C-alpha cells in the first residue's frame, strides 16, 4: 500500500512536527497555554459539581474530571484540525502529487504529540496526588491506539465533507460542544437516568474515558469485551474513512 512507503512516513513526520512547533510557538509556555484549556475546564467543573455529583464524593474527583477533559479536548482539537487539513492547504493539494490523506494524518499527528505531553502532565499530577500507578497502566497504549484510530477515521470523513460543504467546520464546532455533555466528563454513567444512559454508553469516546479512569484512577482491569468492541469499531471507522477518502481524493483536488 502506497500509504506505508517510507517516503510518505517521513512526510507525515516532518509535517506533524512542523505544525506542532508553529502551533505552540516553539516554547514550553506555548505548550502550557494549550494545556491550560482542559486544566481550567477541569477546575471549573470540579468546583461546580464536587458536592452535587455522587462521583464528587470520591477523593480523586479532580483527576476524574481532568482525565475526561484532557481526552475530550484531544478529540475535539484533533478532529477539528483534521477537518480543515485539506481546505487549509489548497496549494499542496493542487500542486503536489502525493496521497492526500497525509495532510489529515499529519494534522491529527500534531495533536497526538500534544496529547502525549498532556498525558505526561496528568501522570505527574497522579504521582503527586499519591495515587500511584498499577500494572493495569500497561493497557494505556491499546486504549490510545483505539482512540487515535477512531479520531483518524472520523477526520478522514470530515476533511472530505468540508471540501464540499464549507460550513462543515461550524457544524462540527456545534456538534462537539453538544458532545461534551454526552460524554461522562464530570458525571458518571450511573448518575444519569436510564433513558440517556445508552446514548452516553454507546459513544466510543465515553468508553475510552471510562477505560482510562479504570486503569489510571481505580487501578482495575477495564472490561476486555468493551475494549475489544471499541477497538474493532475504531478500526472499522478508520477503514471506512480511508475508503471514503480515497474514493473522493481526485475530486477533492479539483474542488479545494
Amino acid at each position, binding site marked *: 500500500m502506497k500509504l506505508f512507503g*517510507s*517516503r510518505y512516513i*517521513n*512526510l507525515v*513526520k*516532518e*509535517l506533524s512536527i*512542523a*505544525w506542532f*512547533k*508553529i502551533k505552540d*510557538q516553539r516554547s514550553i509556555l506555548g505548550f502550557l497555554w494549550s494545556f491550560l484549556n482542559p486544566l481550567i475546564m477541569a477546575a471549573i467543573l470540579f468546583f461546580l459539581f464536587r458536592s452535587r455529583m455522587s462521583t464528587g464524593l470520591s477523593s480523586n474527583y479532580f483527576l476524574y474530571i481532568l482525565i475526561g477533559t484532557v481526552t475530550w479536548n484531544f478529540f475535539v482539537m484533533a478532529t477539528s484540525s483534521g477537518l480543515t487539513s485539506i481546505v487549509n*492547504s489548497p*496549494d*499542496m493539494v*493542487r*500542486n*503536489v*502529487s*502525493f496521497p492526500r490523506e497525509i495532510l489529515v494524518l499529519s494534522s491529527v499527528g500534531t495533536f497526538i504529540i500534544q496529547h502525549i505531553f498532556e498525558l505526561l502532565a496528568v501522570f505527574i499530577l497522579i504521582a503527586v496526588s499519591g495515587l500511584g500507578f498499577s500494572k493495569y497502566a500497561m493497557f494505556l497504549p491499546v486504549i490510545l491506539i483505539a482512540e487515535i484510530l477512531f479520531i483518524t477515521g472520523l477526520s478522514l470523513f470530515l476533511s472530505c*465533507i468540508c471540501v*464540499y*460543504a*464549507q*460550513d*462543515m467546520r461550524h*457544524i462540527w464546532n456545534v456538534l462537539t460542544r453538544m458532545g461534551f455533555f454526552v460524554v461522562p466528563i464530570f458525571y458518571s454513567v450511573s448518575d444519569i437516568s436510564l433513558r440517556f444512559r445508552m446514548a452516553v454508553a454507546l459513544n466510543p469516546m465515553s468508553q475510552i474515558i471510562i477505560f482510562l479512569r479504570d486503569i489510571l484512577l481505580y487501578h482495575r482491569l477495564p472490561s476486555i469485551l468493551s475494549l475489544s468492541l471499541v477497538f474493532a469499531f475504531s478500526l472499522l471507522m478508520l477503514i471506512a474513512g480511508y475508503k471514503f477518502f480515497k474514493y473522493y481524493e*481526485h475530486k477533492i*483536488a*479539483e474542488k479545494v
Partner: protein
Amino acid sequence: MQNIIEVHNLSKRFILATEPQTFFRVFKRFITRSFPCKEIWALKNISFAVKKGEKIGLIGDNGSGKTTLIRIMLDIYRQTSGSVNVFGQATGFLSLGIGMQRDLSALENTYIFGAIMGLGKEEIRKKLDSIMSFSELGDFIYCPLRDFSTGMQSRLAFSIAKEADSEILILDEILGAGDTSFVKKCSQVLEDYRKSDKTIIMASHDIEAIGRFCDKVLLLNKGQQLAFGPAGEIVELYKAHKF
C-alpha cells in the same frame, strides 16, 4: 527508444458549482441527485507520446489547459476520458515553496519542502551543503522564513527542488524568480538538465526559452491540441498565430 509518457485521446471536464456550497445544499443534492452546475471542457482529445530523454515544451495562452494537462500527468487530477501512462517516477515543480512555514527557519523548511519533494531526511542531510551553497543564503539559514524576501524564498525552494532526483521532471512556469545572477544559475541548472538523460516537460510563456530548450513542443489553445512537433517549427507557428 521506448515511450516514457503516453497520452491518448485525453479529455478533461470540470464541473463547477454555480451556487455557494453549504452542508444542507450538498446533502439535498445528494439525496435528490440533481446538481445545478456548469460544465467546462479544459482539455479535449489530446494525444502525444514522449520518448525517454526528450525535452518537451508546452505552450499556449492563459487558460489553454497547460496546467491541467500537467496535473493529470502527475496524477493530481483524474482525466474524464482517454488514457495517460507515465512509466517512471515523475516529480512536478508547479509552484515553488509549497508547504513552507513562515514561522520556521530556512533550515527546518529545507527538511519540510524536501520531504514534499520526496527526499528523505538522510538524503537532505547529505545534500544540505549543496543546497545551502546554491541558495547563497549564508547565515540566514537559521532565520525564520518570514524575514525573507520573496526572491530569497524562491531561491531556497529552487535549490531544494533541483535536488529531487526523478527521471521525469515536469516544470510549470517556475523561471524568473530572483535577481539576474540567480536566474543565470537557474538557467545553468536547466542547461545541465538539457544535457542529461532526464525526460523533461516544461510549460512556459517564455517562447524563446522553450525554443532553445526543447526538442518538441505541444501547442494548446482553449483545451484543443493545435500542434505537436519539432520545437522550432511550432514556436514559429505560435508566433505567427499570435503576432
